[in-house]
């Protein structure tokens, strides 16, 4: 029996009866959606209700207060918010150009034989558990920073406040670099796929018109995929903001102003991870939930911001992103 004949007979057999398969599909997929919506709803409810004692006690002042002290029961998130933003943005600043360059290399420049193995390695980098990266940060990266990199930066760029201070193995710079390593594979593999999605005719056309390869990339490829690149960068940012374990391992856990990259600091997700077990006061625990609320708001804002930008670029490009 041919395949067509078989499907036809199946269709005949089904005619006139309730379509069990369709019903099951609807129930299953609808149920899955409900599950996600319920999970998010319950999560937000749980986090906010646990954060409530801290929210009602400290109010918006929580965002600007720099004190985090379990002895006096005073809590504020300013340094932790700053630490989160400094480490994430610094990591993005290094990771994004690197990752886009890798994406371009893999899609446009690399010899065909090398593309698959290098691409695989980039993706493997994304598969390394963050705790392993954190350990690498402690054992390899930290000592290297403390003995070589930071003293060099201090000698040559010490006039910039970010590179002043005493070199140390654990600190914001360590956290920035570990986060960079985490973001690069995400942004790199997305941008490679994006560049590969640019129609060959466009690239060929640009080259045929006498554009150099660089002009083709700058004038055709990058504008074509800019919306996607923005989304990739936002994804990387969200990853950096939300990373807890690896950052906790290398940042040096201190509630201090992130005025120098060599110094110790704190980031919200890592702070929750280190402080949550056995909090000394109930207000401290509630304040950790407050940090989680702030993280939720930041990731929501990042997502919405990304969608807005993507839509705007899409409109400008005349295509739907």
């Amino acid at each position, binding site marked *: 029996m041919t395949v067509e004949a078989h499907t036809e007979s199946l269709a005949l*057999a089904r005619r006139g009866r309730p379509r*069990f398969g369709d019903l099951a599909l609807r129930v299953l997929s609808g149920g899955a959606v409900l599950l996600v919506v319920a999970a998010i709803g319950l999560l937000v409810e749980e986090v906010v209700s646990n954060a409530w004692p801290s929210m009602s006690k400290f109010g918006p002042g929580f965002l600007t207060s720099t*004190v*985090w*002290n*379990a*002895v*006096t029961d005073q809590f504020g998130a300013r340094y932790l918010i700053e630490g989160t933003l400094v480490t994430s943005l610094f990591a993005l600043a290094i990771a994004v150009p690197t990752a886009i360059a890798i994406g371009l290399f893999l899609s446009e420049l690399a010899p065909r034989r090398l593309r698959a193995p290098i691409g695989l390695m980039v993706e493997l980098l994304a598969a390394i558990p963050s705790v392993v990266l954190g350990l690498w940060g*402690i*054992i390899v990266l*930290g*000592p290297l920073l*403390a003995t070589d990199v930071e003293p060099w930066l201090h000698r040559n760029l010490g006039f910039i406040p970010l590179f002043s201070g*005493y070199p*140390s*193995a*654990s*600190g914001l710079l360590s956290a920035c670099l570990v986060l960079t390593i985490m973001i690069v594979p995400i942004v790199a593999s997305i941008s490679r796929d994006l560049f590969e999605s640019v129609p060959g005719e466009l690239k060929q056309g640009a080259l045929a018109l006498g554009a150099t390869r660089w002009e083709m990339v700058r004038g055709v490829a990058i504008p074509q995929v800019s919306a996607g690149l923005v989304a990739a960068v936002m994804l990387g940012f969200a990853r950096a903001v939300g990373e807890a374990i690896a950052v*906790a*391992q290398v940042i*040096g*856990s*201190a*509630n201090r102003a992130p005025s120098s990259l060599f110094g*110790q600091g704190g980031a919200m997700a890592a702070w929750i991870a*280190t*402080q949550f*077990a*056995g*909090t*000394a*006061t*109930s*207000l*401290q625990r509630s304040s950790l939930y407050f940090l989680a609320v702030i993280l939720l708001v930041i990731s929501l804002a990042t997502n919405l911001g990304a969608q807005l930008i993507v839509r705007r670029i899409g409109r400008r490009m005349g295509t739907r992103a």
Partner: protein
Amino acid sequence: MTRMKRAAAAAVAAGALAVAAGCGSSGSTTTVTAPGSSSSDSKVLVGAGSTLVAPLLAQWEADYLKSPAAVTITYGAVGSGGGIDAITAKSVDFGASDAPLSPDQATACKSCVQIPWALAATVATYNVKGVPNNLKLTGPVVADIFLGKVTAWNDPAITALNPGVSLPSTHITPIYRSDGSGDSYVFSSYLSAVSPTWKSQVGASTQPTFPTGTGEEHNSGVAAAVQATDGSIGYVGISYIAADSLNEAVLKNAAGQYPQPTTGAIAAAASAVTTIAPDGSISLVNPPASAAKAYPMSTYTYAIVPTASSKASTLKAFLTYAISSTGQAFGLPLGFPPLPAAVVTHDTAEIAKIGS
């Protein structure tokens, strides 16, 4: 016919789902015996908490299973903070913490009692190239180091205590525990007792806010960071000194002596302090000068148990065993000196409060 086949297929699919669900639930029943959940079997006791007391519990586990009681003790060394959370949630039969419960924790852990069941110490450790073991320090100097007032190893405050030791100008890197820790509690309580500045600026807590230095997770993280950093100073539970062959600083006690943190020096501190606080905690830091040989950063470590337990009799029997001379005898080779008689009497009364 096809209808029946379809019904059969649906039944098989439903069966498969049920099996899958069954796997899920059997998966979670296996975790019941792991630390984190109480088991209803009264031949099993589940505990979680302090890493400091874990080596002693390992000995008790092995011995108590062979004893006539034949009860299996399953202990998860998740840290004092994790132990307090676990017993507060009543997901274990007992918790273990090197710090007594804070008032908020005691309220949350409804009608829990804390039973001091072993003696130990927190030890200051350091790593400075060329500087030998047993550097002499005083509490106020350690406080000034962790306050960021003494920043070089050749500071007069340190050299004056160590004539004959050549100290380099290396920058001091203080290293502390970033997670909630009994060792941080002992360390900061000791510094609060000997340094008014520390008391007013930092205070005593399982998670004090250190004004300078680097935070690392768990004893293992502090030990590793001290070993990796030239010029570092930190504090760890006593068993980590030998395990990681770390230097130990000797601290000046109230009598002006510099005793090493031996079991004898810890026992001397314990026998000099007889005050038991209403919450059942006993503070051993900075014992009076009458105890000339006392180590000044000694501590009790506590079992935290609910007064209403579904396994009351098993729990009571195990705790009685732990504080008995049989149980305490396992401690000595591991660095835990036996409990003083007065504390054993107090504990016995506390254990009697446990009911079902």
